[in-house]
């Protein structure tokens, strides 16, 4: 059997596919962050907590209300999205006119509070959530065993990411949104309700995080820290892709998943840091990020 860089190609393909799966989570989460940053200019540190809330709402739906995975996939983002709308209306709106830093501090504080509340009520070691019966088992691809559920994660996240991109870049609603990003005062002068647009955008970004949370529930343990561990990596993804760039967030999310997957084969010890190394290099060479416009 021939080898590629000292690793059998079968193993390499397998790892690349796994990287793509992890990249799916990075993509959805960084997309949400990018959308929020683009319009609100807020670095939403609550994103990880909102991802965690999505997973918890799915768990609660199943265990308290008997609502299955498929319904939760729709309900959890809506429920968590509504909490996002409330946060935007009552908190973020009030500090919209001051420095970015306050938004960051506020959302970071909120994340700590939300995680603390969940930890107090549900402990830190997590809750079990079974993979839905329709998606159990897997396919033998020859070079690896692909669990059906992981395949579904890639497909679902691709659809959601591309749909979001399409709405923002190619529809009338999206054009309002982009106009409001560019010049909110002028856009409002044309009779478009910018504050409503802002609130809904934040709600939508949060709903994306919750959607990723529901996708994650059956494969990672549903625990209060699941978002805190992930959010820092996702921020690095956004920085690499370029703050506020929609396509940048999607492409960077998937490709960094791949890079991380490869690192896990060649030098597993570095797999937790490789993304930050890339971030440092990108910041040195292209400070606005790979897809970002220089301010």
């Amino acid at each position, binding site marked *: 059997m021939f080898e590629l860089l000292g690793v059998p190609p079968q193993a390499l393909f397998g790892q690349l596919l796994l990287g793509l799966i992890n990249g799916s989570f990075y993509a959805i989460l960084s997309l949400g962050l990018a959308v929020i940053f683009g319009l609100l200019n807020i670095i939403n540190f609550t994103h990880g907590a909102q991802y965690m809330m999505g997973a918890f709402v799915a768990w609660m739906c199943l265990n308290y209300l008997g609502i299955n995975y498929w319904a939760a996939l729709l309900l959890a983002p809506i429920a968590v999205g509504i909490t996002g709308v409330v946060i935007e209306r009552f908190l973020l709106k009030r500090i919209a006119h001051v420095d970015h830093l306050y938004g960051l501090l506020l959302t970071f504080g909120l994340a700590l509070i939300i995680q603390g509340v969940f930890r107090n009520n549900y402990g830190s070691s*997590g809750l079990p959530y079974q993979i839905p019966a329709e998606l159990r088992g897997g396919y033998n691809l020859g070079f690896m065993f692909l669990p059906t559920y992981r395949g579904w994660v890639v497909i679902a996240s691709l659809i959601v990411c591309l749909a979001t991109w399409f709405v923002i870049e190619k529809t009338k609603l999206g054009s309002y949104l982009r106009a409001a990003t560019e010049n909110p005062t002028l856009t409002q002068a044309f009779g478009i309700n910018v504050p409503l647009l802002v609130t809904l955008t934040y709600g939508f970004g949060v709903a994306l995080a919750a959607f990723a949370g529901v996708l994650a529930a059956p494969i990672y343990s549903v625990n209060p820290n699941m978002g805190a561990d992930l959010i820092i990596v996702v921020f690095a993804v956004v920085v690499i892709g370029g703050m506020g760039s929609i396509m940048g967030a999607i492409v960077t999310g998937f490709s960094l998943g791949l890079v991380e997957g490869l690192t896990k084969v060649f030098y597993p010890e570095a797999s937790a840091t490789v993304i930050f190394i890339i971030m440092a290099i990108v910041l040195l060479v292209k400070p606005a990020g790979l897809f970002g416009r220089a301010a």
Partner: protein
Amino acid sequence: MQLKTLLAATALGALMASPALAQQISVKAGVLNDRSGLYADLSGEGSVIAARLAVEDFKAADKGIKVEIVSADHQNKPDVGSTIARQWYDQDGVDLILDVPTSSVALAVNQITREKNKVHINSGAASSDLTGKACSPNTVHWTYDTYALAQGTGGAMTKAGGDSWFFLTADYAFGHALERDTSAVVTKAGGKVLGAVRTPFPGTDFSSFLLQAQASKAKVIGLANAGGDTINSIKQAGEFGIVAGGQKLAGLLVFATDVHALGLQTAQGLVLTESFYWDMNDQTRAWSERFAKLNGGKKPSMVQAGVYSGMLHYLKAVEAAKSKDSAAVMAKMKELPTDDPLFGKGTVRADGRKMHDMYLFEVKKPSESKAPWDYYKQVAVLKADEAFKPLAESECPLVKK
């Protein structure tokens, strides 16, 4: 006014003359552990509750010992843990530090305790180095260690035909120690270690590492990790059909709280080693029920049970030594036999190793479990001298050979 002063002076005189009160010893114990991260459920506030129960059961106040308990979160970071330990010893008058899960933090606290000549009773950490090459006259390692886990789960799996191993190792002091100790057991029993992968700690996605383990064709995949890492590895191994494909998983360190988080559907059949399980006899059941009432219904882990048992023994030693002087108390702890409702009778060895039996458990099938937290059936008992490293092989400089 004059009368008041006179009365006060008399009272003060009486106080000083009273023999019972002259012996009053006040002890300050610090419970240092993970209160917010992946080990918070198996140690955390539960360990503080366990320490309080020990003070209550010892009736410390009646014996002229005043005990104050403080606690802090070391966030599984050695730097954070060291700073807290130093502050406790230097400024806050803490006499002993209990628990300290996460071996990297435990090794740091072990060193600081030695420098400051205080007492450290470790329950949460696993590395057998605490009583091996890093042993200290000021440390007792109470509940379990990587050597015992390796003997228990590693020995049982190898005997059952699992003679080739691949490790998923958490990349820090604990994982390395557990991999080393288990490899020794496997090789000694005639097995082979085919490889290992060091996974960043803490991690969430283990699928890539599991695939490498699968490709190694080893009969047993040893999980040299703990807490959330173990939970995610087992969950994802199920998803990738690793167990269905004929390879066995060895959870080298699995706590009852982990099984609770996994659910029996996923965890069933796992073989694991612990020194304590709540449902072993009437005494453990009675104590665990008291504990659960204070801990939101959650049963104790062996780490929390160890904090109780260690605190109790420390207080006995203080009573016997009539002082809280570290050297005197350590000498009494090693001299007096240990005895408590949770671990039964035992001893503390010269190297600081607390000796008691370990148990091999198997996780029940969902159909066998009759009540919440009814998770284990006992498979075998490992006598203390088989479970822990014999003194003759010890690397500890305190042991005279």
